[in-house]
């Protein structure tokens, strides 16, 4: 695919390029994230993990993927 057709998004503060019509589910699969151990925010809104295949990503989207780490 031509580079011009790529879409820029921000994932956990880092820029990424995806192809058009890329779903949030495709992104999670691409990043190999275990769905049962994470939560996802799209432009500061929590996305129901059951609905990620229906969520299409668009230019400039900001995605946060979080998990649990050690803490007090």
């Amino acid at each position: 695919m031509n580079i011009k057709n790529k879409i820029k998004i921000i994932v956990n503060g880092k820029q990424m390029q995806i192809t058009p019509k890329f779903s949030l589910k495709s992104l999670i699969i691409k990043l190999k994230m275990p769905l049962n151990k994470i939560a996802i925010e799209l432009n500061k809104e929590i996305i129901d993990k059951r609905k990620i295949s229906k969520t299409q990503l668009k230019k400039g989207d900001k995605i946060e993927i979080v998990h649990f780490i050690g803490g007090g």
Partner: protein
Amino acid sequence: MIDKKFKIANKIFKSRLIVGTGKYKSFSECAKAIKTSGADIVTVAVRRVNISNKNKARLMDYIDPKKITYLPNTAGCFTAEDAIRTLRLAREIGGWKLVKLEVLGDKKNLFPEMIETLRSTELLTKEGFKVMVYCNDDPLMAKRLENAGAVAIMPLAAPIGSGLGIQNKVNIKIIRKQTKLPLIIDAGIGQASDASIAMELGCDGVLINTAIAKAKNPIQMAEAMKLAVISGRKSYLSGRINPNLFGSASTTNKGII
């Protein structure tokens, strides 16, 4: 004497020691310390996944949330909005409603920002969260938190990670007298005797992270803390003798030769 059950938001827990999962050398050391401590609640934090290193070990691979209750915290949050965002995400990971609220106001000594903490408690409670609140050892604020719907009051003993032990026993005692909510000392414990003192003051539990994780032997310290909490609780329930300035012989003079 039979102790009453340690109950938070209507759920019974076996151990009165809650352990933090931060600052350990490795996840396996953390898991071992938790097992030795006997804790059935552990605090955890919400942070970004490292997307460039996908194979990095995860806390959930070492500590099974089906066996141990995860208590998501809001470490690093300075406003009610930050705290609510963080806890909504925590809830989304796996449905956790029991949470530890910690809204800080000062990066140096990590004291709680009590105005934001109170506001957060109200908002989170309205959203259905069961909020255990890290707070100052201020009886008036503790009362306000209780009225706002907190499920546990968790005053500091001393600044987080300081290891200074309980600095204001009087305030802790006053809070104990005024509330029926679980009272848990959160932050500032340094050694086992501090944990015992907390329990002897009538607290329902103690939350410890740094004192175990950064001890030279964290696993052994986890055991020491477990015993200290049990010991302090038994001492509290047993009813101590009145302190006396003068001596009182343990042996009778009757039959002396």
